[in-house]
């Protein structure tokens, strides 16, 4: 139940900078997700908090106490590793009891504590089993249990669900969230899966090449991405991007994308922030309306390339200017390869990014 503060943290491995001048504050009792592609530095960040790596520069505070020189075994931080790192030679009970045994807890108290945690994770019946005989989900619970029995100050989780099958992952996602609420503990959760981060995190951070891109609640990251990277990271399918350049005509400002133009006069103020006339237009698939006939508000005509039916909805891959954009088709919409359809971009949901800096200008 503590606050985690990172200040100007830097870490290099053999000349390669993995964490670059990172400052971050994680509140108590918060479910905080760190989202980033593999290699973005998520694991290193967690290991720095845990004390398994030593930072080159910067400070780590747990509960407002500087812990730079506190050894990992004394930081009172629990970590669930991607490969779980259960002790394969011990039973479930022994695995869960291990951290307490190291702390020399009396036997009866230890037994009660393990029983209690096992019950809350509904793995009581597995306590005498060997680790090798457990399923993936059961192992996952044991790993969480081993972290829980200690009642640590902070939980760190490094892609803990990545080895589970899709269905189980959904289930565990809900369960972890419930667990965190019940415990009221600080959870820091690293994942490359934006759905996991968005659905679980109270707040989340996006990390790219060791640098924080944006830290906020998931809705803000989704609706107001700070730059093109964050915009492209969140959402499934990802946001569509098209390059274009600004042009003045009859006192109006138009963004010329090639086969069509969009009136962006009303963003006049924001456009002053752009470093040049070259912009990138962003629009999410769910904000594109696909119609068979061209209407008065249609943005342009496109050709259907790929149809991906997902049951309840359908994703269309549409050819525009030599590139492809993705859009959700309305229910009951029928389309096949080669069809000509019209699309309408929701004018209130378009994003503009500076091509040079990739920063959002809206």
């Amino acid at each position, binding site marked *: 139940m503590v606050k985690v503060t990172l200040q100007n943290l830097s870490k290099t491995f053999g000349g390669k900078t993995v964490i670059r001048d990172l400052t971050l504050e994680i509140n108590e009792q918060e479910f905080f997700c760190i989202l980033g592609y593999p290699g973005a530095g998520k694991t290193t960040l967690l290991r720095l908090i*845990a004390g*398994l790596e030593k930072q080159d520069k910067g400070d780590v505070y747990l509960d407002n106490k500087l812990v730079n020189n506190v*050894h*990992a*075994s*004394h*930081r009172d*931080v*629990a*970590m669930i*590793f991607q*490969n*779980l*790192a*259960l*002790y*394969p*030679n011990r039973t479930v009970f022994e695995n869960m009891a*291990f*951290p307490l045994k*190291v*702390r020399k807890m009396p036997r009866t108290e230890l037994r009660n504590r393990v029983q209690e945690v096992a019950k809350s994770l509904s793995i009581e019946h597995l306590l005498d089993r060997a680790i090798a005989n457990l399923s993936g989900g059961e192992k996952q619970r044991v790993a969480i249990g*081993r972290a829980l029995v*200690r009642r640590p100050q902070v939980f760190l989780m490094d892609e803990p669900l990545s080895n589970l099958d899709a269905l189980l992952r959904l289930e565990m996602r809900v369960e972890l969230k419930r667990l965190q609420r019940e415990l009221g503990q600080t959870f820091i959760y690293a994942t490359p899966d934006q759905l996991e981060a968005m659905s679980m995190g109270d707040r989340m951070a996006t990390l790219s090449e060791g640098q924080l891109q944006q830290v906020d609640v998931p809705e803000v990251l989704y609706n107001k991405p700070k730059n093109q990277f964050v915009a492209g990271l969140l959402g499934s399918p990802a946001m569509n991007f098209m390059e274009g350049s600004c042009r003045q005509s009859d006192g109006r400002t138009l963004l010329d994308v090639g086969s069509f133009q969009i009136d962006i006069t009303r963003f006049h103020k924001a456009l002053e922030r752009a470093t040049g006339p070259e912009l990138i237009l962003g629009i999410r698939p769910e904000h594109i309306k696909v119609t068979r006939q061209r209407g008065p508000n249609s943005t342009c005509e496109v050709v259907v390339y790929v149809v991906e039916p997902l049951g309840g909805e359908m994703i269309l891959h549409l050819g525009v200017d030599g590139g492809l954009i993705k859009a959700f088709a309305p229910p009951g919409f029928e389309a096949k390869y080669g069809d000509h359809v019209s699309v309408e971009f929701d004018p209130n949901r378009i994003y503009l990014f500076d091509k040079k800096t990739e920063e959002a200008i809206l």
Partner: protein
Amino acid sequence: MNRRTRGILVSLMRYVAVIFSALVAIFPIYWMFSTSIKLPNEWVATPSVWFPSRPVLINYQFIFSQAYEYTIGRRPEEATAFYSFAWSSMKPVFDSLILSTFGTLIALFAGTLSAYVLSRYGQKGAPPPVFPLMYRMFPPVAIIVPVVIMYAVLKLIDTYLGIIILYATLTVPLVLWLMKSFFDEIPREIDEAAILDGCSLFGAFYKGVLPLAKAGLAVTGLFIFILDWSDFMGVLLLGGRNVVTIPLKLAEYTSGHGELYGPMAAMGMVAVIPPLILGILIQKYLVRGFTFGAIKG
């Protein structure tokens, strides 16, 4: 030929092959055993005596008595009366046991610790260091001369301590290489999980990783024990009077009194026992150990 008869034939041939190779493997041991219970005139008789005409124990009685002259020509009854058991005759067995046990334990202790450090704190992906194996690249005779000189100065010649040190130093590099490959296969996260669970660095090794390397430790221990147990050169040059091991005693049976094949075989049978017991004790680890890590193949 139908399918069934062919199947029977194939499995028959398979059995024949297996039995044949088993015989080839067992035959030397059988020969040693049968020689150990043969009378002197049957040891090297032509044509060979495949089965002792009259099994006797005098060879065993000889090696465990104080007798120095083998009573060739005496009738077995007389011989039995001639030899009486003497504790001093057990000295080679005890010496071998003491030297091999302590040599192995020290090598395991030092080698395992350094292997762990090299596996965990060495440069990632770096090949294991070659220099500890340098000893092994010379013929033993080449390094034994400087060792003899050093030992002479240190007054370690013909002492238990001296030979235990020799065994330990010669085998530490092997322990290091073998154990490093076992440790390398245990994920680092096990150590890290143990550290986060509250263990010290040594605790992570001792409570987290070492139990997982038990099989490797057992196999390495057996391997080193057998190496020490069968050493001849070291004890020949550095021991002799005060320290006499089984291989050295065996050599005695070739000199002076002629070739005493019977007592040699009897001593050989005795020498088989400790490694055999050790092998049986760690049997459950053997298969796992041999199919894992460096001893594989």
